[in-house]
């Protein structure tokens, strides 16, 4: 779902890279956030909410809300809407909270 041609904007995309989300290999371009890359792949459900177990996805995209928290390279509660995808990153959805494993 990436926009290839735009009447006003040109998108200068970085190098093609890959990261792993819940076991799945996801394509991203350097400079993109994890959230943008997941979206481009059609993944819009990120998490299940901690108490009521409701599905949750992206919401604010500016790092202000808590809708997109994931464990990234072992660090829980990372806001993937403002965290840039890196080659080889391991991203996990959280259930119910993140794990602080050493």
């Amino acid at each position, binding site marked *: 779902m990436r926009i290839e041609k735009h009447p006003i904007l040109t998108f200068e995309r970085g190098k093609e890279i890959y990261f792993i989300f819940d076991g799945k290999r996801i394509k991203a371009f350097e400079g993109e956030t994890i959230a943008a890359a997941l979206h481009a792949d059609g993944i819009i459900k990120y998490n299940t909410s901690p108490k009521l177990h409701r599905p949750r996805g992206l919401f604010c995209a500016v790092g202000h809300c808590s809708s997109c928290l994931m464990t990234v390279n072992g*660090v829980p509660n990372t*806001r993937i809407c403002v965290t840039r995808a890196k080659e080889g990153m391991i991203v996990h959805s959280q259930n119910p909270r993140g794990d602080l494993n050493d």
Partner: protein
Amino acid sequence: MMKEDNIIVCRCEDVTLKDIRELIKRGYTNIEEIKRITRCGMGPCQGKNCGQIILREISMITGIPVEKLTLQRYRPPFGGIKFSEVLGENNDEK
């Protein structure tokens, strides 16, 4: 009738409109009280999403105009910071 328990006021702590309305009816009409009891506003967003909705609910139920109500106080550090980052130990995933 609206299904108030399907309306999420606070995503961070999974608080529903039903929870908020029940508390206000029980006499908790200050946003700081509601914050302390439900944890609305204690999550990562510190009440950015829920604050105004709660004020409106308080105003609707108590009849006090919204302008007369106050929002909760924000507390540092905004958005969170890792202990390692406070200490300047950069052992980040970055």
